[in-house]
């Protein structure tokens, strides 16, 4: 037994000149289910060398997380794992939990996605880091471990680490928790760090910070990193090599430059073209990648991507293509029968996917460019109370603090900002159609503060909303026709007319009206969001408020929904208030953009101006934090990394409320800084955008804008 092990290891060493740090060979993972076994990972091969940075990209359900948990030996015991996983030449499969636990956290460590649930709520951050140290070094004293934990917190950039080590996870922000997770992961100088969607739940500015910390951790420990993500942009800027996963297999792999420059699997090509991309968005129409990934419980023979692939040929349906080397580079491979045609350029990459036709001029609605919505100095403050027995107000949460904007008929205003900046509160205030705390909301020329209950109900016909999560926004207990028809029940439409109208709007959003009697769970994510859009359109509104309408969808689905929204706008002459944190999506759809920070709009203007030539330092930092799925651009960019988290809206920052994080503020002379600290900047016209910054003219002192 021992002999054969040594022999095979030796044989392996002979075959490959340098031993890989991690090698995954023909890995399969199967979960037995009452309804039949689900094979989540179907024969995955990859390797990671010492100090290398590998990115694994895939949509939800592609098996990317499952394969990394298999490496850690953290899959449920019911999972059946096949193939082999070698770490430093030794197999990790069939080892006892005790044996594996010696390796976990020491040789290999992992960073999980959701840092709130991943930290034990009842122990301090410091104790949880010290625990990782003590587990692998029995000689270490508790005191020394605590000291080292504080050092680690400092390394990952947590200010005031001595004090913060005593804090509990709930006292940390999302970004700080993720930093703490990284501190735990690097505590014992591991040789391999697996980062499983480490930035998915975070804002772009925080994402940029975390990726920087991850790079720093990699440099400090010399560890190899496997970064698992759904975001091609994140990989482009960080990884050396990448593997694209689809339906439980790797379908394309290669160096980052090669894959982005010349992708050769139609799935990768489609993914890259369907992604809203800050560098190209706004000029070209997105190319949707239709359909959805196959269910892994009963796969048809042949290529699993065949049903969605426009370049499909008969041979694709019979056998599943293996990963085939492209050209001379042994690292570059793709699992497509037609890889040779694609690589040689015989099958042009740009022509595989048909570009959707824009709406014909004849179908376009004529709209007068009048204001349909005008919001002036809208305010929403919440009292902050304290005291267990006698509540008293200790502060004010300035969720919305004087927001003004207007929307013209047939146009889209994109409202962007980090989470917690007050953009959701703003739209909720507008949608209430009630008298605001302060300021004015005018919809269709009517001041909502003066409406009677009856008029308010009538006005609700004109303004409708689409929510972020299509699962949460549709009542699971009602059939689609009742969901879509619900707004009509308020306005006394007869049941017969309702059904007719429902069928019409379903058709309009590209759904088969015969499916109206089904329930939401029978639809895919993209279809559900179309149902949500249909419901918003059923009353023939003038304005639709879109609250992050695509951010809960997989990348490949997003493009279809964005295109639909654009087409509907042109056909029906709708006005959109489009709230999003994803700047690339906003770039794609918005005519005008307003950037929010801590309850205020710091910059607003045409999308063109804001994205090409941002004047406010915050806008510029925000744009620079957005990863672009192009390694060449990513490498040449200088990132403006903002310090720390979004301050709490309870903090009373004198003068300009961005100055605590402002990179420009730090470059200013004393007089300039004083002005920021004392005067609250009013929006003023700089270039052609309204900017709330005293020093907007000097923005170019910071790194230049995205080119």
């Amino acid at each position, binding site marked *: 037994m021992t002999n054969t092990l040594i022999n095979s290891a030796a044989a392996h060493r002979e075959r490959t000149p340098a031993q890989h740090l991690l090698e995954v060979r023909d890995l399969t993972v199967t979960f037995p289910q009452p309804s039949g076994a689900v094979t989540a990972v179907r024969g995955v091969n990859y390797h990671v060398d010492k100090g290398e940075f590998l990115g694994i990209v895939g949509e939800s359900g592609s098996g990317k997380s499952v394969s990394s948990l298999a490496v*850690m030996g*953290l899959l449920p015991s019911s999972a059946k794992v096949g193939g082999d996983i070698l770490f430093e030449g030794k197999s990790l499969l069939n080892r006892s*939990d*005790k044996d594996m*636990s*010696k*390796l*976990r*956290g*020491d040789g290999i*460590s*992992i960073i*999980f996605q*959701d840092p709130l*649930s*991943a*930290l*034990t*709520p*009842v*122990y*301090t951050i410091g104790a949880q880091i010290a*625990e*990782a140290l003590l*587990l*692998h070094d029995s000689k270490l004293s508790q005191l020394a471990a605590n000291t080292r934990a504080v050092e680690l917190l400092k390394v990952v950039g947590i200010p005031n680490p001595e004090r913060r080590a005593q804090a*509990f996870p*709930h006292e940390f922000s999302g970004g700080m928790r993720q930093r703490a*997770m990284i501190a*735990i992961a690097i505590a014992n100088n591991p040789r391999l760090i697996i980062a499983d969607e480490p930035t998915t739940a975070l804002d772009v500015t925080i994402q940029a910070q975390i990726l920087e910390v991850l790079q720093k951790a990699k440099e400090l420990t010399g560890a190899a990193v496997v970064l698992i993500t759904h975001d091609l942009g994140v990989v482009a800027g960080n990884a050396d090599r990448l593997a694209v996963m689809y339906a439980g297999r790797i379908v394309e792999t290669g160096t980052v430059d090669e894959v982005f420059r010349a992708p050769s699997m139609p799935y990768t090509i489609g993914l890259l073209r369907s992604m809203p991309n800050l560098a190209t968005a706004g000029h070209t129409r997105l190319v949707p990648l239709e359909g959805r990934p196959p269910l892994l419980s009963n796969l048809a023979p042949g290529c699993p991507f065949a049903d969605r692939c426009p370049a499909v040929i008969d041979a694709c349906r019979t056998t599943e293509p293996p990963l085939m080397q492209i050209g001379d580079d042994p690292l570059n491979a793709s699992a497509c029968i037609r890889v040779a045609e694609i690589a040689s350029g015989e099958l042009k990459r740009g022509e595989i996917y048909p570009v959707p036709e824009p709406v014909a001029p004849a179908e376009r609605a004529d709209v007068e460019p009048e204001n349909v919505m005008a919001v002036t100095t809208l305010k929403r403050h919440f009292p902050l109370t304290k*005291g*267990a*027995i006698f509540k008293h107000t200790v502060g004010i949460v300035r969720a919305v603090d004087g927001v003004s904007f207007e929307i013209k008929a047939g146009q889209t205003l994109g409202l962007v900002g980090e989470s917690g900046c007050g953009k959701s509160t703003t739209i909720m205030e507008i949608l209430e159609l009630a008298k605001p705390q302060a300021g004015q909301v005018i919809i269709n020329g009517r001041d909502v503060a003066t409406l009677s209950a009856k008029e308010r109900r009538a006005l609700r016909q004109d303004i409708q909303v689409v929510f972020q999560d299509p699962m949460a926004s549709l009542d699971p207990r009602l059939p689609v026709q009742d969901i879509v028809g619900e707004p009509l029940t308020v306005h006394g439409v007869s049941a017969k007319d309702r059904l007719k109208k429902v069928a019409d709007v379903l058709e309009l959003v590209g759904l088969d009206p015969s499916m109206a009697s089904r329930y939401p769970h029978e639809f895919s994510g993209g279809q559900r969001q179309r149902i949500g859009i249909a419901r918003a359109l059923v009353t023939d509104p003038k304005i639709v408020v879109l609250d992050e309408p695509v951010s809960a969808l997989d990348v490949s689905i997003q493009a279809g929904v964005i295109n639909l929204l654009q087409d509907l706008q042109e056909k029906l002459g709708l006005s959109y208030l489009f709230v999003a944190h994803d700047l690339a999506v906003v770039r794609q759809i918005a005519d005008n953009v307003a950037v929010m920070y801590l309850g205020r709009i710091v910059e607003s203007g045409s999308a063109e101006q804001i994205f090409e030539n941002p004047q406010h330092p915050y806008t510029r930092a925000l744009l620079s934090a957005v990863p672009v799925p192009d390694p060449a651009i990513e490498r040449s960019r200088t990132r403006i990394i903002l310090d720390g988290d979004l301050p709490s809206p309870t903090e009373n920052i004198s003068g300009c409320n961005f100055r605590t994080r402002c990179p420009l503020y730090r470059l200013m002379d004393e007089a300039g800084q004083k002005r920021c600290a004392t005067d609250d900047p009013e929006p003023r016209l700089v270039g052609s955008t309204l900017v709330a910054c005293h020093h907007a003219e000097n923005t170019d002192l910071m790194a230049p804008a995205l080119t």
Partner: protein
Amino acid sequence: MIGFIAKRFINYAILSAIATLSAYVLASIILNPASRYLGRNPAPSTETINSILDGFGTNPNTPVIERLWAWIVNLVAHGSLGNTIHNTSVISEMTARAGTSLRLLILGTIIAAVIGVVLGVWGAVRQYKTSDQVISYASFTVLAMPSFVIGILLMITATTLNNVLGIQLINFTGEYTAGLEGGWWVHFWDRAAHLLLPTISLTLMGAAGYSRYQRSAMLDVLSADYIRTARSKGRTRGSALLRHGVRVALIPMSTYFAYSFATVLAGAAVTELVFSWHGMGEMLMQAIQQSDINAFTGAILFNAILILIAGTLADIVYAALDPRVRV
């Protein structure tokens, strides 16, 4: 943390006070203390009955609100809960009985909590394995029994055991053997022996309920991400479950303890009655049967204070276990 506990304590105190006062009002409306004297031979005159009842402060002819006020004034000014219909003071009656009830309650609750937590954790970790099935079915069966059935079944078992062995191994009627000769040591053992069956009875019920709840709390924790994190740091599954899992799964238990305590009190009262103990349960039952409003309110007050203490204790444990509520 102090603020949190103070707030909870005040909340409980107000609730207990209102519960006691409503019990007084309710009893005053429902019970008719005069009925006790009507059946007597020779029948006392209405004036006599009225004067007796006035003495107790329970005359139905006085408006309820006035009687309640008098009762409160009496309590605040003299620290008295009035007299029972046997002309003893309610407080002295309560002090005589409280020890008996507390002995059973404290012992039963503590043992039940410990056993319940251990069985619950064990069941969750070994979910659907044989040991879990046995624990589950056993707790369901115990929970399907009214407390008096458990008591009587235990007595039947003890009698059978005594008969088979031919000696009086387990004593179970009353709290002690009347007229027992011997030193304190003998008395101590006698009382301990009498305590055995009622304690088992109360413990069984408590442990069954706690184990079900602890099991589901633990199951929630088993699939938590931080268990996975703890394992990824290098803990084995068992050690991660103990150090990280059980610690968190105990938090909801403290809440459950507070609100299940009312049920425990009722169970303890029934158990006392079944085993013919002269405790607070018997006092309460007799008070209702004899239309003794003062004694009834006293017994309810006793229970309310216990709930106040148990609830506050549970909150202290909660705050100690969960840093998220410490302000």
